[in-house]
Each structure stands twice: as C-alpha cells, then as structure tokens.
C-alpha cells in the first residue's frame, strides 16, 4: 500500500496531528489519532456539490445523497442506518455547493463496520438503486424542502439572495435544495449517471479520527476500498470566478406573509482559503457577530429599530464567499431607517477599521469556534476532509486558527473598505402582506416558547 508522509504536530495545532495516505485507486485517506474517548469518526467527502449540477437538474446532488442511504449490493434498504445505529453509532450526510459529505461516529470497536458500509456504497450503489427508492426519496426531499424553506417565514431568503448575488447561469446561482420542478424532473437514469460520474475513490477524501490504530485502520481501508476502480470521467465544474465587486446594488422586494419587515443583503467576499477571507470573517464578527457587535449595539441596543441584527459568512472556495446580513425590524420601523444606519456603520468601519479591543474580541470568538469544531472527533474529521478536498492539504485544518489570529486590524479594515460597500451587495427586503399593525386583533394566538 502506498503510504504518505507522517506529519508531526505543527506549532499551533493544539497537539493534534494527522497523517495522509493515498490508495492506488486514488482514494486519499487522512488519519488522526486521539484516544481520550473510545469513539472513532469516519468522514467521506466527495468532491461534488450543487455547483456541478446542470440546468434543469438543480437539487440532484442532494437527492442523490438521500439515495446513498437506500442500500447497496450487500446492504439492504435502510440497512446502512440500521447497522450503524444498531452498533451504537450516529450518522448522516449533507450536501452543499461544493461537496457532499457522509459521516459515521462509532464506538471504537465498531469502526470497521463503518468502513465496510462506506466502501459498499462507493463501489456498488447501482446494484440496489431502483425506481422505488428514487420515487420515495423524491417525495421525502420535496417534503424536506417544504419543511425547511417553503413553509416557514423568510424560509426562501437564502435562496433568493444567492440567486441575486451569483448571476443567472453561474454554478452557485441556485442552492443545493433545488427547485420543485427540477426535483420532479430528475430520473433514475440521471441518478445513475451522477453516480458513475462523481462517485469514485479518486474523487473523494476519507478521514478517520479518534481512538484508532492507524496501521490497522489503513489495512481495513485498503481491504474494503482498495479494489474499487477509480475513473477520470469527471467534468470540471463550471468556472465560479466573478469580479470582486458586483458593481451595482441589486435589489428585490418581497411582499409575503411574514411577521415583520426584514432587511437582508449578500456581499461578495474573498474566496475561502485566502488570508483576505479570514480578514472578512473578522470584519463580519466585529460588525455583526454576537451581542457586542457594532450592528447589534447600534440597531438593537441604541436605535432600538431591530429585533435582531447580525452578519454571517458562507465560505466558498470556488466562487466569491458570501457575507449575509440579516436584520428583522422592530414594530413599525421602516426598512430605509435600518438601511441608512447599516450603511453608516459599514462606512465608518471601512474608514476607521476595528479597535484593538474589537480585534481581540473577534479573534477570541473565532478561536473558541475553532476549539469547538476540533473538540469532537466528528468535527475534526470533517475539517480534515474540507481542507484536503478544497485546498489539497488536510494539515491546514490544524493550523486554521493561527491564520485567523495572525490577521491584522489593517487587513480587516482593508477588506471591509473593498467589499462591504453598497455597490457590492444584493439586497432583499421583506414587506409583510399587511402592515404589522394588522396583527393587533389576534393577540390570542401570539407567543409561545413551548
């Protein structure tokens, strides 16, 4: 078996190490030992996400992810779920723009089972895939879409924002859940072709983290995955490159049955994996992360025009990342008042940059988030796969926090000045169908935290 190099703990990795290996069929393997708890996490990232989907088949990558739990040659129907849960493990899969991941966290002594299961479906899914599971999971996914997006207030906001921020035809123009029409249109043959195109060992990274014996683990990986043939038929995803700034302010006003007005916006930000993206993360944290952020202090505490105000960052490697502003208005406050305040705060920040204390706070927050991510074997396994798939080097996961801590206040100011500008955002405004006052006569049904 071809063995990779053995890494030693790098400075700032918190004592964590990872080793890299590659099977002859191209499967990349990352191992990280940690014997504190008798558990082992298995994580498999396939380098395929919604950005690989073609017109008329949005949602296919995610629908396909569901089909991966419907059995393979040696695993009947829901056997994958049954066997993992019956072994005391937990499992799931998720689909995003840039990847599809599958993961099991197992008691140590059941690790081999998880590897066997993942290999079985990587190598033989099509032996079990049939119309019945396709039709059933199509209905399940459509209900997932209804439950998470269509049946909740503001549920489709993210979909609308990405559609605005990434132009028509761009691979990130649509979100992984896909449209109802395209979900209806997907065929069994589409699913088969998708599998043959993207599900191959040389298009995946497998990480195993926790209470493992690396040599034994590698031997199991070779035994179960080693004979799965690799293939090179995968087309490159469409180019996600875009100008750094949009160049104009895009805007959509949605009149819907929502409980309050809302101002949302998507800003184009630097790609993940760059120092500028880390700087942008710090900028958004100072401006809109947590209870001491500038926007929270301004809109929620001082002006009292918002119920909640914050910024989030969607890191993307193959296209500009997305900074997502979300402000829900208070009472009868109108959106322009909020927008003016947001612009004022962003302009001030672009001019002055963060204070030393704000930098310290933002870095402390992001450091804790990293400790949380790397504090569980499953979180660590996922991050190792992420850096291996998107940036070619899993070791980068272990030093990510150092890179965030190395960013300077000036770099934060710079990225804010360059990107957090009105001509670099897509704005989404929600206006309730009736004015908020119309709710006054229905006090009866208001309020519940139960």
């Amino acid at each position, binding site marked *: 078996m071809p063995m990779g190099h053995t890494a030693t703990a790098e400075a700032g990795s918190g004592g964590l190490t990872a080793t890299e290996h590659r099977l002859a069929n191209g499967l990349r393997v990352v191992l990280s030992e940690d014997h504190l708890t008798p558990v082992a996490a298995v994580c498999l990232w396939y380098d395929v996400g919604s950005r690989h989907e073609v017109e008329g088949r949005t949602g296919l990558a995610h629908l396909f992810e569901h089909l991966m739990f419907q059995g393979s040659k040696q695993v009947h129907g829901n056997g994958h779920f049954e066997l993992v849960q019956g072994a005391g493990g937990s499992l799931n899969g998720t689909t995003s723009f840039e990847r599809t991941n599958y993961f099991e966290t197992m008691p140590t002594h059941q690790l081999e089972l998880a590897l066997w299961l993942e290999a079985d479906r990587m190598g033989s899914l099509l032996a079990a895939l049939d119309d019945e599971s396709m039709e059933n999971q199509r209905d399940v996914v459509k209900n997932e879409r209804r439950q998470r997006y*269509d049946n909740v207030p503001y549920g489709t906001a993210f979909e609308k924002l990405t559609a605005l921020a990434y132009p028509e035809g761009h691979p990130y123009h649509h979100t992984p859940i896909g449209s109802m029409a395209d979900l209806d249109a997907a065929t069994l043959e589409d699913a088969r072709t998708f599998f043959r195109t993207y599900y191959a060992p040389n298009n995946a990274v497998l990480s195993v983290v926790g209470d493992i014996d690396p040599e034994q683990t590698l031997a199991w990986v070779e035994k179960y995955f080693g004979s799965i043939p690799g293939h090179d038929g995968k087309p490159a995803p469409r180019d996600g490159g875009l100008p750094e700034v949009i160049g104009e302010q895009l805007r959509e006003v949605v009149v819907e*049955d929502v409980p309050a007005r809302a101002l949302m916006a998507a800003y184009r930000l630097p790609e993940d994996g760059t120092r500028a993206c880390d700087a942008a993360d710090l900028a958004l944290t100072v401006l809109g992360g947590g209870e001491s952020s500038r926007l929270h202090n301004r809109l929620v505490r001082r002006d009292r025009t918002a119920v909640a105000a914050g910024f989030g960052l969607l890191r993307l490697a193959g296209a500009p990342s997305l900074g997502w502003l979300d402000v829900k208005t208070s009472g009868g406050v109108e959106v322009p008042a909020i927008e003016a305040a947001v612009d004022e705060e962003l302009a001030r920040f672009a001019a002055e940059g963060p204070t030393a204390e704000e930098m310290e706070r933002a870095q402390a927050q992001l450091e804790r988030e990293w400790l949380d991510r790397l504090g569980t074997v499953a979180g660590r396994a996922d991050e190792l796969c992420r850096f291996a798939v998107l940036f070619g080097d899993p070791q980068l996961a272990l030093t990510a926090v150092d890179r965030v801590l190395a960013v300077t206040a000036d770099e934060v100011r710079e990225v804010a000045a360059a990107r957090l500008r009105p001509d670099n955002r897509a704005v989404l405004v929600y206006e309730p169908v009736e004015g908020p006052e119309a709710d006054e006569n229905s006090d009866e049904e208001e309020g519940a935290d139960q």
Partner: protein
Amino acid sequence: MTDAAVSLTSMEFHPQPQPGAARPWAFPAPERGALDNGLTVLRCHRPGQQVVAVEIFVDAPLDAEPEGLDGVATIMARALSEGTTERGAEEFAAELERCGATLDAHADHPGVRVSLEVPVSRLRKALGLVAEALISPAFDADEVKRLVDNRLDEIPHEAANPSRRAAKQLYKELFPATARMSRPRQGTKETVEAIDAEAVRAFYDAHVRPAAATAVVVGDLTGVDLDEVLAETLGGWTGKPAAPRPMPPITADDTGRVVIVDRPGAVQTQLLIGRIGPDRHDAVWAAQVLGVYCLGGTLTSRLDAVLREEKGYTYGVRAFGQVLRSDGEGHGASMLAISGSIDTPNTGPALDDLWKVLRTLAEGGLTDAERDIAVQNLVGVAPLKYETAASVAATLSDQVEQHLPDDYQARLYARLAETGTVEATAAVVSAFPVDRLVTVLVGDAAQIEEPVRALGIGEVTVVS
C-alpha cells in the same frame, strides 16, 4: 442494471465485519460539594475538553412568577447579562466576548439556567463576569424596557412559526387555564407589557440566591485550582438560606381530540400529538425511553418506516418524552409527543397511517430485534453523545433540576440494558394510547379539516 453490474465485477466484496471488543465507558461521576454561601457545586474533569462548560441552575420556577407577569423570569434571566453595578450592558457583553465566551440565560418551568462556555484559559475571568451578573445585576429601567420591547417583537415571529405555534396550542389544550404550564413560557403580549424593572428586581430578590442554586463545572481542569476560582467568583454571592419550593400538582386533559390551527395556504401541516406521562423518577422511564425510540426515535423506527421511507409523506416524524418538571417526590410529569410536518394533501392519509402504526404496536407489540437495536443504539451512542463538556454539563444540570441523584444517567444505561421487549412494549403502548391523544394540526383548515374529521380520531375544532 446490466452496465452497473459490469462495473461491479472489479470490486472485491467482503462479508460484514464483526465488532471488536468494546472499550468500557461510563457516564462521568461528578464530585459534589458546596461553598460557604450555600451554593452547591458539581465538578467533573474531562481530559482534552479545552472549552469548559458551566451550568448554573437557580430554583426560580415559572410558577413563582406573580399573577399577570408571565415572562418576568425570562426578562430577568436576559437582564442578568445586560449590565451590572460595575459596568454597563455593552461593556459587559464586550468583556465576555473578549474571553471568547458564550453566555445564555433562560427561564423554564423548573427554574432559571445560566450556561457559560469558555476556553479554560479564560475561565476565571468569564466566571467572574457571570458571578458579577448574579451578584449585582443593574436591572436598569431603560435596559429592562428595551428587553421588554424586544420580547414583544419576538412574539409575532413565534406565532408565525408552525412548530412554535403548534406547541403553544398543545400546552393550552392540555393544561388547565389556571396552571402556569398552560401559558407560554416567555409570556404573552399582555403580561410582558406589564413587566418593568421593579418587577424584575422583585423576582430576583425573591428567588435568586446561592442557597437555591447549583453550579456544574465540566471540562479539562488540568492545572486549574477550581476551589480558588470559585472562591474568587461565585464565592462572593450572598443571600438568605432557601427552603425548596413546593411544586404545584400537574394535571392534564388528554381526552382524545383534534385542534386545527388554521394557516391558510400552508404547503405542509405541522402536527404535534401529545399528552403527559411520568417523569424520570418513575420506574417505567427506562422502558419508556426504549419503547418510544422504537416508535419514533429515528428514520428506521416504526413511524418513519411507514410515513417517510414507505410513503414519502414527510421529511421525518419523531416521538419523544421530555420532562416538564420534577419534584423528586414522584409528582413530576413529562410531555410525551409525536411531531413532524406532512405535506398538505397527504395530511389525512398520514394521520390514518400514524394511528394504524400505534394500533399495530398495541396489538402485536415490539419485536426482540427492535428492542435489541434500540438498546444497542441508546447505550452505544453514550460516549459519542457525551464527548463535549457542554453535553455532560447539560445532563448533570438536568439531573439537579429534576431532583435526581448524580449517578442517575450512569444507572439509566444499566437499566436500559436490562429492560426486555415486553416491558418496552407496555411502556410505549401506555405512553401513546390511541384514544387519549391531543392532536394539534397547524395547517390549511380548508384543505385538511374534512379528511381529518373522516378519520374519527376525536372531536375536531378549528381555531385561528
């Protein structure tokens, strides 16, 4: 399938592997102690967990809120982190975040919970801030007014959320109007509007004191002199001794019936089917956990096997038991419920199937195989579930809040392993009797009312 079969020829298949020997694991046993001021302390060293979790439970239950001031416990809990006599609200939040900490404080039926998570290197400073919040909160009139207004703004958002709306209706249906449990935990528009700084201060003075509180500290405490840290922080908290508050009896009307909360145009029906049952002090709890898991714990459980994996009516339906409140004397109760979302046109057929699943279970019982898988899962996932300090601290604090012994969770795993199929069947069948379930449906009444009436699962009423 033929070309698929061709590509399979090159993969070598192996039989399903057998498990190795399990490494023993036990739910951590905390060390119990008390500070001079009467504060109970549970501590638990978890190697490798660099983010320490601190949970402080205060015996300030919702039923202690004065008449007409529902929500005052919530506003008080939120106001704790909105400034102290030493520093204003903005400075307090900034100092806490400078520690890389998160702080959450909320009020529920049993009392108020303050939850801190912070990297161990900054534990002393962050716990100092939490102590400051508990010892000398400012309760500034203007800040309280802001929190009240903010809470009022949240209410319409909750009403518009189908699952929150369903829960509110179910509690209203189950409990007598005079019981605090029948009303929203965080108050209604009328009651929240009546809350001011004086009311918040009065609630704090009456209930928040170290003798009525327990702090749980979990994480990698290597090199931390926790006694010293506690003495310098929570040790400065003073207050009168506290007698435990008696718990009002919990009763519920589980006459089988259906309430449709009309949400015109909804593409799905949010369903919440519930009644109350025993709490963890009851000997049946372990069997009930097991049986309820078999009914609706995961997507291979009975409900999802039909509703999701066979029919595709839903993204998932879950059954669960959740303790509402316990007093340690056997008078406590839990909410037993089934929840999920069904696409609107299939609401009637899905409910029909759901009832069939319950009837089939009552008639035929669980199989030994189902019971075995459930035990293996519930017991086997424990080391995964309790990997982080926060998850251990939350369970220890739940035990405190429910008047359970510190080794309750550890013993629960032993009891689950001993529980047989017959006991698990009996527990889940008596947890969900088909004629004693209150069904709340938040959905488009114009489309779902008739099909639901036709099922004959109880009187149907429609509310807006």
